[in-house]
């Protein structure tokens, strides 16, 4: 009996230890406001992508965020996997200009101008700035981070993004703001270079959903969850099957073990 208690204590402590370790960076960040937990369709064992929401999220990203933020790890073809029709993807890609590469004369530039062609589905989604320096120059020295992995690259990423996008406030009296900065209690240091990006009716959703700030923040975050983990749905589906198999298989192995050892007692 005592041994069992110890085993339980061991496992509990191991769990507590790991959980403590996990939660530590959040606390370590100091006086940052804690983001409220939202419901995401991608949560849980049976998490999935809401394709309509991803399309709305892409719309928010491409109409608002994309003016400063890249998603440099994504290709236009990925948007088809996300749920857009092939024709739509072609159209979106064709609106972008990509480097056409050397022409028959081996030239990449014509009179100092880059030779471009319309984008294709196999191209990477074109970033708003050619490089980090250009991005800083256009944003008063601040660098808008790439968003391809954002939900994985921040603690509690999805909830954090939603809280950040909806969390803009007036700075409390006495709080010393730097020039060109905006108050946001969810951002480390509470000052963020990015101005409040979302406002009600900031986009007009094709599916008629009312474009509130909260709705747009949720949609674009859902899109970014997909952008960071496009395999999420496949992964969880496969996981459920694997778990079902393993539980049955392990139960069988336990029965075999009991059977074999029965001879000994």
């Amino acid at each position, binding site marked *: 009996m005592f041994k069992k208690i*110890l085993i339980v204590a*061991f496992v509990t*402590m*191991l769990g*507590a*230890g*790991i959980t*403590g*370790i*996990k939660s*530590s*960076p959040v606390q*370590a*960040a100091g006086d940052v406001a804690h983001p409220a937990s939202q419901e995401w369709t991608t949560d849980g*064992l049976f998490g999935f992508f809401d394709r309509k929401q991803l399309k709305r999220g892409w719309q928010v990203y491409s109409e608002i965020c994309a003016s400063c933020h890249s998603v440099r*790890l994504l290709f236009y073809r*990925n948007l088809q996997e996300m749920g857009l029709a092939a024709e739509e993807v072609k159209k979106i890609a064709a609106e972008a200009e990509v480097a056409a590469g050397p022409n028959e004369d081996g030239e990449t530039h014509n009179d100092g101008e880059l030779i471009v062609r319309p984008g294709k589905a196999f191209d990477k989604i074109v970033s708003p700035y050619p490089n980090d320096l250009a991005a800083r120059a256009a944003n008063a020295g601040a660098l808008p*981070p790439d968003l*391809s*992995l954002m939900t*994985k*690259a*921040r*603690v509690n*990423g999805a909830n954090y993004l939603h809280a950040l996008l909806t969390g803009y406030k007036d700075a409390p009296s006495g709080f010393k703001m730097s020039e060109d900065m905006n108050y946001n209690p969810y951002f*480390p240091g509470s000052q963020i270079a990015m101005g409040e990006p979302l406002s009600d009716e900031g986009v007009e959703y094709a599916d008629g959903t009312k474009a509130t700030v909260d709705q747009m923040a949720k949609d674009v975050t859902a899109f970014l969850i997909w952008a*960071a983990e*496009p*395999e999420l749905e496949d*992964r*969880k589906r*496969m*996981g459920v099957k*694997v*778990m079902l198999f*393993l*539980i049955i*298989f*392990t139960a069988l*192995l*336990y029965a*075999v*073990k009991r059977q*074999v*050892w029965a001879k*000994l*007692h």
Partner: protein
Amino acid sequence: MSTPTWKNPIVQWVDHRLPIVTFLDHAIVKYPTPRNLNYWWNFGSLAGVILVVMIGTGIMLAMNYVPHTSMAFDSVERIMRDINYGWLIRYLHVNGGSMFFICVYIHIFRGMYYGSYKEPRELLWIIGIFIFLAMMATAFLGYVLPWGQMSFWGATVITNLFSVVPFFGEAIVQWLWGGFSVDNPTLNKFFSFHYLLPFIIFALVFIHLWALHTHKSSNPLGIEVQGDEDEIPFHPYYTAKDAYGFGVFLIVFLGFTFFAPNFFGEPDNYIEANPLVTPTHIVPEWYFLPFYAILRAVPDNFVDIWGILPVIIPAKTAGVIAMFASILVLLVLPWLDTSKVRSAKFRPTYFWLFWLFFIDTIILGYIGAKPAEGTFLLIGRLATAYYFLHLVIFMPLVGKYEKTKPLPDSISAAVTAGGSDAKEGS
């Protein structure tokens, strides 16, 4: 043990020239094993299985990974996004690393609880510590490869530790870097070593098994096997028990892999390495945290307090020495433990000391994840002091003065015929 005769003519032909079938028969089929091993004895074979998983997935990852500072991060993302089932292979590898350490830590604590390292198994234990050291090196090197922020800054912190080596410190660090900071030559070198070390671990595992099979497994009672009635053949008894344990292990391992693949990771490592931006808190992977806490526990004015060799041992050096000592001291554990009785089952005082030591390492792990300041630092220092106090002072003293409980006459007497430990082997 008699040499079996094989009926199958091909087996017979091969075995006559290369007795591999006889060897396997001795090593994993008829191999005599104490009849009372409990489930804590599963973790050695589990660690062996996960090593194979790590090598397998690692070889596949290496086919698509590019060890160059400008391409490493993107090549890992390409594996995640564009390689067929690349995400599965990488997440198996990433979580496999954590599972490997969980298994090995349980395996080490099991050895400590049951006194498995005692005569005549001292070398078996020492080889095990070398495997642990090689694992730590491999894990550290591997963590650098995706070239995220923690990869880069972790590599910077850890390689800098070697600068404390007297006279050669700077030269060693520059050699590790292949230059004057962590950069492309470092990444190339680390990739090469990360591919090499697992095979050295593999070889060490075979030496570990060689030593194991010389004196056979210890057991929860810690008394020697006295006759055939104390033993059972490895197959089918322990093959069946290990297989069941493997099933349970897979549920945990794959549970993380499929449903929380980044649970053990740091979000910062999904940000590409940037030598110009230092993360707020540089935190190593969870399995290094207790040692990281010890590293940072040594006060800056350590030398002033103790007034010893102030020229040769500056504060940073003392921290590094403490960290390495915390692992190396385990090598002499078989001699620090003076008790004649192996198992904590019959050692009432050591029983509590063991659990205090276990809790101490958990506390150290917790502190390792916290910033080294204020109360955290104080707790870290106390826990570090206790770590060494336990191993260097308590272990020898307790062994001398403890009044142990009477040992059973034999394994079979204790575990069969309704003895109090009858359930031990079930």
